[in-house]
């Protein structure tokens, strides 16, 4: 299972109304570090499908959400729970470092 895309249209349902923790990866095509962290996030998703849902939000196509969440640096990864941001991770990191940052959610 790899990370799926979300968008402005499905944001409410995909992220805000969701039960479990949702990690949203704010990314863009032109962002090199975003492209490099993408397979790492896919891997984390496939190994932890029961604990966390990882979604990708393209900031070029969804500028209003990028602005709403004050994104000024990507990749930015925000973990939502109950509609609220619980954790923010900025910048591409190796898998073991991301797993450390997400320890509270990955159990």
């Amino acid at each position: 299972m790899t990370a799926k895309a979300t968008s402005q249209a499905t944001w409410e349902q995909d992220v805000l109304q969701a039960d479990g923790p949702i990690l949203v990866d704010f990314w863009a095509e032109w962002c090199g570090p975003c492209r490099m962290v993408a397979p790492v996030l896919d891997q984390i998703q496939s190994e932890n499908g029961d604990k966390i849902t990882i979604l990708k939000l393209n900031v070029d196509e969804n500028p209003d959400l990028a602005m709403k969440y004050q994104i000024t640096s990507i990749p930015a990864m925000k973990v939502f729970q109950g509609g609220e941001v619980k954790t923010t991770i900025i910048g591409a990191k190796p898998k073991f470092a991301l797993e450390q940052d997400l320890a509270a959610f990955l159990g």
Partner: protein
Amino acid sequence: MRQVIIIGSGPAGFTAAIYAARANLNPVLVASSVEVGGELMKTTEVENFPGFPEGIQGPDLMAKMQEQAEKFGTEVLYDDVTELELDGEIKKVTLGSGTVLEAASVIYATGSAYRTLGIPGEERLSGHGVSWCATCDGFFFRERTIAVVGGGDSAMEEATFLTKFASKVYVIHRKDSLRASKIMQERAFANDKIEFIWNSAVEEVLGEDATTAVLLRNTVDGTTSELPVDGLFIAIGNDPRTHLVHGKLDLTAEGTIWVDGRTSRTSVPGVFAAGDVIDPTYRQAVTAAGSGTVAALDVEHFLAALSDGTTAESVLV
């Protein structure tokens, strides 16, 4: 056991790999998981790499170097080194995945990491207006006011690039003259959106949830002032990435890995170093590539001597 492990995926690492692969040393190159390609991945147009008169995008140049290294048989691993065992005849390199690689020699080409200012607000507002990568984050500063700190080529490049998005870019520099090359300086001076603030140091980044201003101190008369900005891009240079070899390899007073004269030999036999991690002075893509060549040739010589029955300790490259 392998013949050589190359650590690092910038111009030094990939050039060492091209040479080592062509010498049939079957190199494995540990490229990192999320920083493959190194510093040049954050740049735009590279205009000073010979052979590209029209210029080439930094990421394209690195993709080509990797392609060339792989074409001759380099195995590239997208993983990070977590531990090194460099003493003895068998070098052990532990990766994030838990894999342990073993080889008779190692080329250490980890480059450098950006320097931080170490001032209040910098860490807290990182990702909230404070950035080290104009090409990654400039997009979010459309029609906003930005400051760039630094006086070198990378500061000039960032400032010039950021004018594509920002309405105004201040360049803050501690001195009254720049270290940047003439062509980069002139390009910045000619840009209407760029304004220089000389003899000034950034003392603090201000703002609650997002950057709103920077506190400046005049380095001549000591007076302080606030400059309202929406973003601060820090381009004050890099430090060699040596944390994995502290206590294992000798370092120089500048913090780079010590190498013997013009060779790539470190203080430990069988361990060679190349690129920005040994270079406190020049730090160019092309000098790093040249340094990678030196390391691969030194390794080739070292391995040849080893197979002649000489012990690692007594091999003189």
